[in-house]
């Protein structure tokens, strides 16, 4: 599997996973991922937003304008049924990837 796809797929999966816990806007997604990984994972905005728009185009997530915690208008994303299916497939393929790569890269 090409490295770029792996990377894309993993970012998609992380975003989708985040959204399974409820609708969030882009900034909140970054925050949530940071918190969950004790700031080990810093998602760049430069990758996040194009990924969101691409997944919205493909119908994996949908967006609605709502009001944020601070009373400002924000675009909230939520996961769709197609998105959940995509997440399952992506998680599975990631597991296969780790299975295949781990014995090579990790000392036993």
């Amino acid at each position, binding site marked *: 599997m090409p490295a770029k796809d792996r990377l894309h797929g993993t970012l998609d999966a992380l975003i989708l996973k985040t959204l399974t816990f409820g609708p969030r806007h882009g*900034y909140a997604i970054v925050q949530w991922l940071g918190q969950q990984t004790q700031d080990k994972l810093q998602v760049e*905005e*430069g990758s996040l*937003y194009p990924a969101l*728009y691409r997944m919205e*185009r493909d119908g994996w997530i949908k967006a609605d304008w709502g009001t944020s915690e601070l009373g400002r208008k924000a675009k909230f994303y939520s996961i769709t049924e197609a998105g959940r299916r995509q997440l399952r497939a992506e998680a599975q393929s990631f597991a296969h990837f780790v299975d295949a790569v781990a014995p090579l890269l990790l000392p036993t």
Partner: protein
Amino acid sequence: MKPRLPFGRAPVNEEVDAELAFHLEMTTRELMERGMTRQQARAEAERRFGDMKSVNDECRRYGVERNRREQRAEYLEELRHDVVFAVRQLAKARAFAAIAIVTLALGIGATAAVFSALDAVVLRPLPLDDPGRVVNLQPTRRGDAAGISAPEFLGQRDTRAFEHVAGAVLGTGVTIAMADTPELVEGARVSSEYFDAFAVKPKLGRGFTREEEQPGAPKVAVISHGLWVRAFASDRGVVGRTLQLDGAPHTVIGVMPAEFDFTRETAEIWLPLVITPEQATKYNEKYLTMLARLRPGVTLEQAAAAATATQRAVAERIPDRVDPVTDYAIVVDRFIDQMVGDYRSLLFTLLGAVGFVLLISCTNVANLLLARGTGRGKELAIRAALGAGRSRLVRQLLTESLVLATLGATLGLGVAYGLLRVIVAVSPESVPRLEQAHIDWRVLLFTLTIGVTSAAIFGLLPALRTVGTQMQGALREGGRQSKAFARDRLRGILVAAEVALAITLLVGSGLLIRSAWRMQHVDPGFDPRGVLTARLILPEARYTTPDAITRTYALIRDNAAAMSGVQSAAVASIVPLSGSDAQSSVLAEGQPRDVKRPQANLRLASSGFFATMGVPFVGGRDFARTDDANAPKVAILNETLARKLWPGVPTRDLIGKRIDALSGKRTESIYWEVVGVVHDLHDASLTQRPRPELYVPVDQTPATIWPLIQRSLVVVVRATNPSTDAEVFVKPLRRAVAQVDASLPLADSRTMMSYLRGSLETARMNTLLLSLLGGIALSLAIVGIYGVVSYFVTQRSHEIGVRLALGATPSRIWQLVVRRGLGPIVVGLLVGLALSVATSQLLASQLFEVSGHDPVTLVAVGVLLLIVGLLATYVPARRAMRVPPVVALNDG
């Protein structure tokens, strides 16, 4: 209806800007909370974000794509919804749907059938490489078509405008000695460039070389794919085998591919065209056909100019030329045009006729939809009240039309399939490639296109009208009545249009049918009843001298005459209407030699030919057996030739005069004494005026003629009983011939009745197909008129009831209704008649002895439409008068 996404209509750029700005703002705030100033925080947030512009661009691109996908999905969803809704609506109005679908199926199906015939015969290119470059070269002399001699062909070989120039003698019969019986197949003698002119390579083996055109070269042959399959069971080893052709051994050197069998009538065997040095200088032996392949980029005009220049250079060398060289020219036509010939205009005429039928059926359905629109006022008003916009409602109604058209087109394909069968069945055998007509993807595409187009034609006007009135009339029940008048007028216009279209079509059909009728009553000039004809070809190998040839034919003729049930038998070179031809120039004795000599059809005939063919004598005597090779040369003329040579001279004074004809050179003369004059007969076709004809006795045929006509004559047999089907003589005749020479096959055995029918086939096809289309148009018009008048009656039953209750006499009501029905009919009648006079000019070339504005046809069609219109009005009008006044009172 599904609400759009709240931001759906906001431009994508604003959406992206707002979202990214929000993100920056949030990051800034977070940084400020950690103690930065607002400016520092802002700068840091932007730095972290990275290349804002490229992110923004990428998001916008995805956003635009998203919107497009959503729109499409939404549109498809609406369409699906509309289709489901339309189908449900149509299922509720079964009678309406059935009439509309059948009407459309007739229109669309008929159009598709004619299109597929036209496509197969005219439009589809020949299966050749660049077929447009294959052309026919036709020499003309002062504008009249002329034959082609060997030196003329040889001269054209070097014309630069052509890649290849081929000479050919087409339509020669070739006898193949098969295992049991000899078989005569269609053959051609062609020069070495012939296959190159078509850019077709043999499937097996090779074509001819220049060496094989030389006299004395080894005898070789190329066979067609059809013959290869039929006679050689597709044996690849056939190349190199020896065949007995016309009694001489020939080596098969090639097999042509299947694509080269363009039509049922193309040759099955090709032999090299051998031109002897002697023939190469004979300008008056014109027996060739010329084909060529244009060089790439050369137009027909350029080719014609170049070929004409060559032709004039050749004419310079003609030793005894009378006409100036500027009289010589060459016309260049595309091969396919030549092949399709008159059938092009015939099929386009049919397509035009069928287009009228389609328009009539569209008008009819438009009328039906209009009536239906009135009935659904409430439904539409409710939908409008629920928020459906005007364009949304129009789209809904158009979807309904589209569903109707799709169903109509589907059923129409069935109609097309059936009608195509009919067209193929009633068409003359000679229509090239018609047997290849099928309902294929081109026809499907065409049907689909006309289906959608007709849906637009018949659906748009009623949809706009219906929605327009409904939006104004809204839920007011009374609103319907007030708008009814405007709609009545539109319906009236539609009926008038329908009547006008039907009349135009019927007048066109009527004219062609009357032409056909006239044609069937032309006196052919001979009596075809109980006459059988069959062609014989004597092979060169065994029949070398004129004496051997004439003796053989005399024996065959005597055997034929002795057959039981036969009154008389004769032989001749050509029989009328058989499509064969040969010409000679004729000069009356004493006329100046260097004028343009009259041309006449040249026919060889034995004694008894005129009696056997049933051609009456005007004066003089028939040939006798004593008019043989040793006796003085005699000739018989037809009236047209007699008039041409000696205008105004009475027949009895012509006997004994002498004519000069059939001489090998212009400077020599062969004189023939006129012994008889016969009635004119139609030789080429029934519609052409009889041409001058010259008959000379078979036994006195100049020796040079025999090789030119392949020593071939036609045996003619007349039954004692004229009602005998002459087909019964085929077998006895074969035996009679076999008694003389068992290796001679009988070719083209056909009765004269069959030739006569054949020459009427095109007329018969016109009559049958146009009657059929005219009938369809008429029934559609009846349905249309009936629909409108009965709709009017239903609409007004309330009013009529009141009037009756108030004492109006039934005749007053009758007047009201009939005026309503007849008005549009009369308008349509007048418009239609005017239109017919204009369109029938287009038919002029296909009419025979009938003028384009033949009053009989115009009046007959007008009266027919008027009667039909009255009947279609009468039935609903009678219903109107039976309306009981109670209905009026209850209905209010």
